[in-house]
């Protein structure tokens, strides 16, 4: 059984890299592009001012040490210390404010063809797709969106305050219990990105993430259609073990009697980029480790340990779950 528990510090470090790009500086969405430009403008402006101030300081300390007349000193203070900062700050503030309506395109959000409802939970993400046509599609810990199309996200929380953030796609937005916050995103490049929880939410806050996958619209639509129906292998032999050991009281798996809603929906676990809410690669070994000792991988999670089960059963359940494509 020891193989399940061989979770070293190194694999934790590696784990954080599994869900793809996460840099604000490599934008792959319309909103993130504006944020990146804002960052570079602020950085270059700040660097220029810093160079100017340090240059003046060196100039006066090393090269020009004569005393200034009181009148010209006052003039330098007035222009360099009052007028210049006021005008510069005014311009930077105006630029940032001018960007704001574009960073939060609320008017366009309501006309989006796809709405994705995301609910933050300690320490995972419940995801429900609401396409303009067809029934809602449930998933968890992974968000897929079509490239080039605006998507509206409705953000909720079931317990404490979380914050939703896909750095390469856009700014962050809090998920507040009792409130629905809206966010609008438009991916411009396909790719796999990592979305971390951006508001401290408890013991495993740092281990609460998801993978965001921007796909070509056609591929996205066929993926969503496949998600809407039970995985072909849902009835295979592992499902009996899954149900016998009580997993179905917390987890939902379409096409089986597993109808729980406390834990993440596992209907298509095998098709996800990561498992354990964005922290482990989607391999049979990782799934088996999580089933046996979840508290080692995600301290404070509600899932109980199943290390009392025969290792063969855990392995079989993991293999079945991995097969749910």
């Amino acid at each position, binding site marked *: 059984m020891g193989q399940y528990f061989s979770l070293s510090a190194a694999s934790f470090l590696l784990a954080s890299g599994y869900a793809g790009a996460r840099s604000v500086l490599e934008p792959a969405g319309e909103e993130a592009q504006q944020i990146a430009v804002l960052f570079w403008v602020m950085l270059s402006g700040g660097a220029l001012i810093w160079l100017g101030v340090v240059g003046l300081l060196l100039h006066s300390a090393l090269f020009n040490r004569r005393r200034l007349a*009181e009148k010209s000193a006052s003039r330098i203070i007035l222009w360099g210390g009052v007028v210049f900062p006021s005008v510069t700050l*005014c311009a930077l*503030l105006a630029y940032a404010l001018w960007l*704001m*309506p574009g960073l939060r395109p609320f008017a366009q959000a309501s006309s989006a063809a796809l709405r994705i409802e995301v609910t933050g939970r300690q320490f995972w993400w419940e995801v429900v797709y609401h396409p303009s046509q067809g029934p809602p599609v449930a998933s968890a810990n992974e968000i897929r969106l079509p490239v080039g199309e605006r998507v509206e996200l409705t953000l909720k929380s079931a317990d404490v305050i979380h914050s939703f953030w896909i750095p390469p796609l856009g700014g962050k937005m809090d998920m507040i219990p009792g409130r629905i916050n809206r966010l609008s995103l438009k991916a411009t490049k396909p790719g796999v990105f990592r979305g971390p929880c951006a508001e401290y939410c408890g013991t495993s806050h740092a281990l609460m993430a998801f993978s965001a996958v921007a796909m070509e619209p056609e591929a996205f639509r066929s993926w969503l259609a496949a998600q809407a129906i039970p995985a072909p292998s849902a009835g295979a032999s592992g499902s009996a073990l899954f149900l016998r050991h009580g997993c179905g009281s917390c987890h939902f798996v379409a096409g089986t009697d597993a109808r729980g809603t406390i834990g993440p929906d596992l209907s298509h676990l095998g098709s996800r980029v990561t498992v354990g809410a964005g922290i482990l690669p989607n391999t049979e070994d990782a799934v088996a480790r999580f089933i046996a000792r979840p508290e080692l991988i995600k301290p404070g999670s509600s899932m109980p340990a199943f290390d009392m089960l025969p290792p063969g059963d855990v392995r079989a359940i993991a293999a079945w779950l991995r097969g749910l494509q």
Partner: protein
Amino acid sequence: MRLIPKQIETLWTLFTAPVVWAAHFLVCYLGAAIYCAKPELVGLSFSAVRAGIAAATVIALSLIALSAWLAWRQWGFGTDDPPHDDPTRRDRTLFQGFATLLLSGLSFIAVIFTAMPALFLTECIR
């Protein structure tokens, strides 16, 4: 009735401009927050909120400009240069006038910064 108040010596004139800034800040932020929480209660469009903020800003800037002019007068219209640090009544008055003038400048800029979002935001965030 005189249009411009005569010069009096009190510490309170020092705070005129920051108080105007604080009042303007509250009017803008509370007004926008109440409107966005209960638009049906107010029954106006968001442009009316922006117009209200514009009016409050013009009033606040005028009051601060007046405060600055009074401070300038108290400072003797710039006849003396700081520091006014002699233990005399005259230096005390000049010091207070100069400090009030600087605070008025700061408040003037702060009022503009407070009002600037209304130039760019055209709807409530829900």
